């Protein structure tokens, strides 16, 4: 059997910090030049990184940058009512003035959705969370923005690694179960203000005797 080049575990620590400030219930956008990013119940709070250790702050930063570089606005909402990616992505799409939404789970699984598609359909799906790196997140943001402009971008190749299962499947199950603990049934999507700031790298922790 050929051993594939398995994705190395990246326990990255970001140079940035993330603040997600709740600003009330999310409403449907009025401008058609926006993409809404829907994040899962524990994204960026209980969980701080994806299944392979990519920091959530950098994930959001790349998604936002990918969208903004196309001249499109981005909003971020949190769904606490479900950890089902199709539900999150479709809800984001329905809140989006352009009808295009991106859904993302804490472990990194991502989907681009369009508001008129059936829930279990999608524009693009990235089912193997361990294979999604920052470059892919940026491309996903870029493609979502292009859909919002009415363009037809070439789908981002989702990748395939047949050794992802032995390495990551059980962790994916564990992360899914953990995320489910943060579900608050019946709650409305909440609008988030995203603050990404550079960390003070020079500061040394103060140790009190």
């Amino acid at each position, binding site marked *: *059997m*050929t*051993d*594939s080049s*398995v994705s190395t575990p990246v326990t990255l620590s970001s140079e940035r910090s993330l603040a997600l400030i709740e600003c009330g219930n999310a409403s449907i956008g009025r401008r058609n030049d926006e993409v809404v990013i829907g994040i899962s119940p524990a994204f960026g709070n209980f969980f701080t990184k994806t299944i392979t250790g990519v920091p959530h702050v950098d994930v959001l930063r790349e998604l936002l940058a990918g969208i903004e570089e196309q001249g499109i606005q981005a909003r971020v909402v949190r769904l606490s009512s479900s*950890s089902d990616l199709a539900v999150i992505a479709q809800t984001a799409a329905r809140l989006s003035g352009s009808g295009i939404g991106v859904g993302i789970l804490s472990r990194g699984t991502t989907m681009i959705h369009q508001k008129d598609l059936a829930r279990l359909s999608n524009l693009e799906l990235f089912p193997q969370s361990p294979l999604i790196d920052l470059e892919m997140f940026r491309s996903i943001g870029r493609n979502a923005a292009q859909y919002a402009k009415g363009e037809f971008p070439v789908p981002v190749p989702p990748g*395939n690694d*047949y*050794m*992802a*299962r*032995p*390495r*990551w*499947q*059980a*962790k*994916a*199950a*564990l992360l*899914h*179960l953990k995320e*489910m603990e943060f579900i608050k049934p019946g709650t409305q999507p909440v609008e988030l203000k995203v603050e990404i700031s550079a960390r003070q790298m020079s500061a040394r922790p103060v140790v009190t005797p």
Partner: protein
Amino acid sequence: MSMAHVAGEAGQGARTSKRSQILEDRPVNLDGFVEEWPEVGLVAMDSDNDPAPSVRVEDGVIVEMDGRQHADFDFIDQFIADRAINPSVTERAMALSAVEIAHMLIDPKISRDEVIAISQGLTPAKLLEVAKTMNVVEMMMALQKMRARRTPSNQGHTCSARDNPVQVVAEAAEAALRGFSELETTLGIARYAPLVAIAQQVGAQTGRGGVLTQCALEEATELDLGMRGITTYAETISVYGTEAVFVDGDDTPWSKAFLASAYASRGIKMRFTSGTGSEVLMGGAEGKSMLYLEIRCILIAKGAGVQGLQNGSISCIGVPGAVPAGIRAVVAENLIASTVDLECASGNDQSFSHSDMRRTARFLPQFLSGTDLICSGYSATPNYDDMFAGSNLDAEDFDDWNVLQRDMQVDGGLRHVPEAEILAVRGKAARALQGVFSYLDLPPITDHEIEEVIYAHGSKDLPFRDVLEDLKGAQSILDRGITGLDLVKALEATGFRDVAENLLAVLRQRVAGDLLQTSAILDADFNILAAVNDANDYAGPGTGYRPTGARWEEMKRLRHVMSAADPEQEAV
């Protein structure tokens, strides 16, 4: 070693031993392992949350099962109580202790039929309790006796990462020649299915007449290809152990049973699929152990009247594989399917471990005991072409498998085939498909493609096809209503009369209906081997299936064996 060495200096990496570093770098440490979490079902087979066995029958109807009253049954309980458990024997069977039943399973003096007379009355919780009394060696002893078909066999995967039908026809021919009795394919691009399914069928009948083929797809399309006779069996009809997960897939046990009857109506072999870990992976395990939920699936298959089940965790193997005793639970799944008299296609079909040692240990229980289909299936291509996301074994393991068969004198269903025969059959199969495509006005196959596929290892070695033209061709197969008989005509008209005759003989089985018998496969002479005419008669040492005669002589051959007569030569 001082504590300073163990802990390291603050702010610097801790010093580790050279041995730890070597162990750290071993492939097994790339595998994922997690702690048990019984409250959500992340536990293999030993959980306090599983129900205690019980049964009560009133007026010939099961009104209480595993501590639940009839009014509180969920639809799986209801289906199992009404359809899977024999109410006339259940109270007597349930009165036996789990240990007594486990003893019956491993005692060679107690026949398979005697065990089945009891097992048809056991509830899910009781079957779980029986499994919990057994270690892996006992399970293997039981599996050896409880397998339905006397002769073990094997299933292969023949896919292409590019969905290239020219590759699939050659791979199917080689796989059939190597000994697989069933072949399964699936697609990267689902719309390619008709072309690839035709390629697999033509290849299989070129390699060895009588090999059965299937194409794993969305259920309606899979049924359509079966009804047309482009495929000859089906396997990917999934069932689940909790109501929530079942409903999530818009299904019930009754809808699955209806689908099963659709296959039966055309004489097409089919089995269900299930496996430990699926419910917890979807967050719907309701706090029950993986094996308890899988036993419910096994009994759903039994209750639906299908002849068999593919289980052994299957695509969720990373989940039981990550928890303590997970692989023991996977052996138990196969054993229980066999114990309730189902054909068992016993997994070993998905990438499982980075460690060669661990993935070998994974398949030894099924390989050594023998099951109806040891792998379901074995990737007969390199794993990068296996569109089921990789198998536990692939084409690069063929020689290892053949050596293990010879070492242990255990029949794993395969054989060594000399290079010249393989090249010949790959070429013939590709030319047969070239003829079929030409006859049916499908996108042409060039002589260059044929030349390349004869010598290729995988899709990376092959010229690209025009995907858009192929997809148009695939659609036209559906639009024009092309069937297996059209393939027979095309093969006959283009000079492949022997392949045409093989395919026709397989299609004739749809009318005979013999492939609906438990564990049915076809041998090279188109004889059915099934639990009715090749019933497992294992009754201890000196009985049951043992490779002998021509088959054992075949198993002795390997790529390199020194001649005893002339050690400077290789034996042939």
